């Protein structure tokens, strides 16, 4: 077994048959990797010794070779020895582990703060103090998941908008969740931290090289737990600054849309898109839902009833169920578009139209 393990860990491997952790892209991930390899080798050596003795015994001390059983059955010296020696080995292991842990637990002196919020089933990133925030959704098309199209290289590990961070900068993550517990993991950064509703957890990273680093949610969070990847794009400092400026402008443009006059067609088109990224996971693309957990919208009393009730449930959610309060998650434009879409798609023919201004008015009336 020891030899097999050794072979497995030392022969050059093709991507598909990866057998070991990757050293990663940060100082911390390298430290963790070294720690991992150290413990692994300690275990391997102990294993070879213990199993060696066992196999020797199994080969040599067999009755079929005419072996007479010895009768010894205790020795305090030996017992003390094999209690003390492992204890010392453990202490030796604990020293580097403690050092690395202390390092990981020090998020001070960060240069950029990003708030990460887990939602069922997407991530939200907010650059604190920068006025830039967005959701990051799975980008793999449904056809690939349902085996109707060939799967791409980054199958299930691709998103519409990655988290962008600058290299050579200490980035602090403030991690929380809006519904159930999620966990934000990027193996190459050796950052895994649970996103817990009502708590804010801290983690940090400093990435050396520009590149794209992929990970996934690692805490079971319901139906689409396997479908909420994390993608981090590390850019050079200049590229990052340019990107941030661009995002700020885009955000300003988005806000202006609220006061624009919208036509039914525009709202329906935008609504369909927003519905499919935000609502379809539960209520399904054709609005039939997955009852009873996720009710159908097709012909539903709310989606075909008075408009105020419809706006209310989308903006405020329904406590005690998986229906989140989207008022805080989506822009007025998207809320208006989605509600309009839901009232006029899947055979719901209410015919009315909700504009971004209606949403704004609703929200203001609530305050």
């Amino acid at each position, binding site marked *: 077994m020891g030899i097999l393990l050794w072979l*497995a860990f030392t022969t050059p491997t093709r991507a*598909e048959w*990866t*057998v*070991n952790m990757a050293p990663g892209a940060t100082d911390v991930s390298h430290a*963790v990797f070294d*720690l*991992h390899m150290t*413990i692994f080798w300690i275990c391997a050596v102990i*294993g070879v010794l*213990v199993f060696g003795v*066992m196999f020797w*015994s*199994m080969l040599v*001390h*067999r*009755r079929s070779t005419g*072996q007479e*059983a*010895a*009768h*010894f*059955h205790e020795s305090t010296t030996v*017992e003390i020895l094999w209690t003390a020696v492992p204890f010392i080995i*453990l202490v030796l292991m*604990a020293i580097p*582990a403690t050092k*690395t*842990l202390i390092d*990981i637990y020090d998020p001070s002196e960060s240069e950029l703060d990003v708030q990460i919020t887990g939602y069922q089933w997407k991530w939200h990133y907010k650059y604190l103090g920068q006025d830039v925030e967005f959701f990051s959704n799975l980008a793999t098309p449904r056809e690939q998941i*349902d085996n109707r199209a060939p799967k791409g290289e980054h199958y*299930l590990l691709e998103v519409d908008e990655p988290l962008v961070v600058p290299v050579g900068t200490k980035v602090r993550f403030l991690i929380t969740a809006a*519904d*159930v*517990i999620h*966990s934000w993991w990027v*193996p190459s950064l050796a*950052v*895994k*931290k*649970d996103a*817990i509703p*009502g*708590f804010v*957890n*801290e983690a940090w990273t400093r990435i050396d090289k520009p590149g794209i680093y992929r*990970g996934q949610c*690692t*805490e*079971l969070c*319901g*139906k689409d*737990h*396997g*479908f909420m990847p994390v993608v981090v794009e590390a850019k050079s400092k200049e590229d990052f600054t340019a990107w941030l400026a661009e995002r700020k402008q885009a955000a300003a443009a988005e806000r202006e849309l609220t006061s624009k006059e919208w036509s039914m067609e525009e709202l329906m088109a935008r609504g369909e898109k927003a519905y499919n990224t935000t609502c379809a996971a539960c209520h399904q693309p054709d609005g039939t839902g*997955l009852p009873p*957990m996720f009710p159908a919208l097709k012909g539903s009393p709310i989606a075909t009833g008075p408009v105020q009730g419809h706006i209310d449930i989308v903006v405020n959610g329904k406590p*005690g*169920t*998986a229906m989140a309060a989207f008022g805080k998650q989506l822009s007025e434009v998207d809320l208006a578009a989605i509600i309009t879409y839901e009232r006029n798609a899947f055979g719901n023919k209410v015919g009315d139209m909700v504009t971004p201004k209606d949403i704004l008015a609703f929200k203001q009336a609530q305050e």
Partner: protein
Amino acid sequence: MSAVIDHGHAGHDHHGPAKGLMRWVLTTNHKDIGTMYLWFSFAMFLLGGSMAMVIRAELFQPGLQIVQPEFFNQMTTMHGLIMVFGAVMPAFVGLANWMIPLMIGAPDMALPRMNNFSFWLLPAAFTLLVSTLFMEGGGPNFGWTFYAPLSTTYAPESVTFFIFAIHLMGISSIMGAINVIATILNLRAPGMTLMKMPLFAWTWLITAFLLIAVMPVLAGCVTMMLMDVHFGTSFFNAAGGGDPVLFQHVFWFFGHPEVYIMILPAFGAISSIIPAFSRKPLFGYTSMVYATASIAFLSFIVWAHHMFTVGIPITGELFFMYATMLIAVPTGVKVFNWVTTMWRGSLTFEAPMLFAVAFVILFTIGGFSGLMLAIAPADFQYHDTYFVVAHFHYVLVPGAIFGIFASAYYWLPKWTGHMYDETLARLHFWMSFIGMNLAFFPMHFLGLAGMPRRIPDYNLQFADFNMVSSIGAFTFGVTQLLFLFIVIKCIRGGKPAPAKPWDGADGLEWTVPSPAPYHTFSTPPEVK
């Protein structure tokens, strides 16, 4: 001594079992109840196993083929719950019922009526649990660890039935544990001091204390869930001022001792089997007892090693890391003692010994990965990946399950009065051994390469090892039908077993005839 025993039987032979179905419903006989526990456990093993087959079939290839994510989550949850509470725990209670009275020279368990009740709660509990799969909204889908708020605010409606089922299982376990403690402390034959008991009795005694300590905690945990779900409390609901992390502390305060509940009895059985087939007394009996007790003690102060990533303060993190690493010491002592028992013995490899040796090797591998997981900074990379899945399957399948198989083959002659088919049993061993390693070893690689657990679909880079793993799992699964065949064959006939079929075996259970008469040790034997 034997004269006394023979006399005891002669006087009681007319006291046979009742006839028909009512024998089983009303029985208070420890052997009948042990048998029922074992059959129940095996049925649950097959049920939980078929759910594992669904999981592995879906994971055979990337993409969604067989089931949808909602159902996949129900399968992983039910698989875990059924295997833990339905297969492993009842199997050990079954072994305890059969063997502890025989090992310590007691006529029966101390509380036979309660014994009957604690068994019959289980079919009720599991019928309830499994029925949730057919309810609207489906069964539990939040993992066997059922973290809130996924299992409260966001749970399917059937969660109430799940909670009730857990309560029933908990009551059953607590009663079983009380029975074991009462039996061992009160019904030992004259001369059978505690330090003369077979280790199986010792490890079960300690397990029983663990059960009594932690099952009520689990009950408290699900009761808080029930309150949150139905009565508007907010124990685990942050929006109402509660704390979702509290759930995990409570759960793992139960959960970590629970994993030792699932392994300590196997430690005990293996400690009888290895000496028997090495024809040499167990090395370091006293240190084995102390090691077991230390493991049990430590198991109460390591729970947060399951929570290294929830964001506990660094002092907590360090404490739980050190405490967890410490568990490796007594665990190592046990392994060293077993190996030394074999050393310079006169070994033969009948099925019980094959399973016992595989137990020692593979359980140790699980211990190694456990030690790696104990290192908090490294656990940040391993946690909730397939590496953890590999770890706990290495300690539970070749640990708990192989321990049960080894015990079954070791004591089948005593139970049935026939020898089992050795050739088939060895085939069962080798197929299980190969299947199990093929299924679970690649999971280490998958986890290290970055595959999270509890996902129904994955990136193409994980495809090859997943396919290997599924093939191994199917092999292991099918092989268990062979075990069923071997047991049935052994019950129906075979070479008659002498009172002591294993020349190296030691213990009171081998002083009664095979099959063990319905009543044994009505007059206590005398132990020198």
